[in-house]
């Protein structure tokens, strides 16, 4: 899994550079996030702008990050959802769980 990690103030921006986030690579995303939590970084933005396809285990890895961030008084927010990816959040009602922003600027600004 290719991810690009950037820190802005106290927020970590994770851009998933894969066309698919699925049972083949979602475990790696989950681990990347666990590493960040261990380093005390609890405010995350996951940018999915390059992701064209997400399955239930991709959603599961984001739910895992969301729960861990919340448990540490941080938060995990999403941005850059393509229409088909967005429809997956709606189908599973997860759009009610996550804060979802159009792009990373707006997601980062929401932490200020």
């Amino acid at each position: 899994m290719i991810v690009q990690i950037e820190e802005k103030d106290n927020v970590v921006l994770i851009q998933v550079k894969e066309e698919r986030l699925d049972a083949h690579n979602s475990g790696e995303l989950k681990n990347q996030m666990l590493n960040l939590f261990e380093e005390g970084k609890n405010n995350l933005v996951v940018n999915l702008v390059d992701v064209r396809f997400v399955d239930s285990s991709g959603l599961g890895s984001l739910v895992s990050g969301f729960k861990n961030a919340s448990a540490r008084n941080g938060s995990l927010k999403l941005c850059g959802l393509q229409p088909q990816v967005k429809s997956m959040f709606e189908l599973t009602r997860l759009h009610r769980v996550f804060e979802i922003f159009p792009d990373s600027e707006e997601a980062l600004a929401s932490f200020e």
Partner: protein
Amino acid sequence: MTDKLEVDIKVPNQTRYLGLIGKIGEDIARTLKRFKGDREELAYHINLVLTEAISNAIRHANDDDPDKEIHISIYIKDQKLHIRVYDQGEGFDITRLPSPELKYLDEHGRGVYIIRSLMDEVTYKRLKDGHVLEMIKSLH
């Protein structure tokens, strides 16, 4: 002109072929002359249900054993798209899964729900040496 087509795929019990098989499913969906709805949406859904069903077979039925094999059959019959995913496992009761709304912060448990939401008929049946999940989509 009715569509007719049969594609059979065998791959090792490994998640690295999920993308390829999903793409083959998308290609097939995009070719269907008969389908009246949004063809790009259908392509995404076929990719997705293949991915969900195969991941389940790899993990839950074939215990992530990379030496086992996954068998997928995709065909069109009577204006319906049939997708079959064969596993070599002990099986499960597909009618007795909890509804995912009740546990919406679980990491797991959305795969079969997604398959059921997107396909018209879903059955899971015992075979001589394993099980088959059949997912059917009407094309008219």
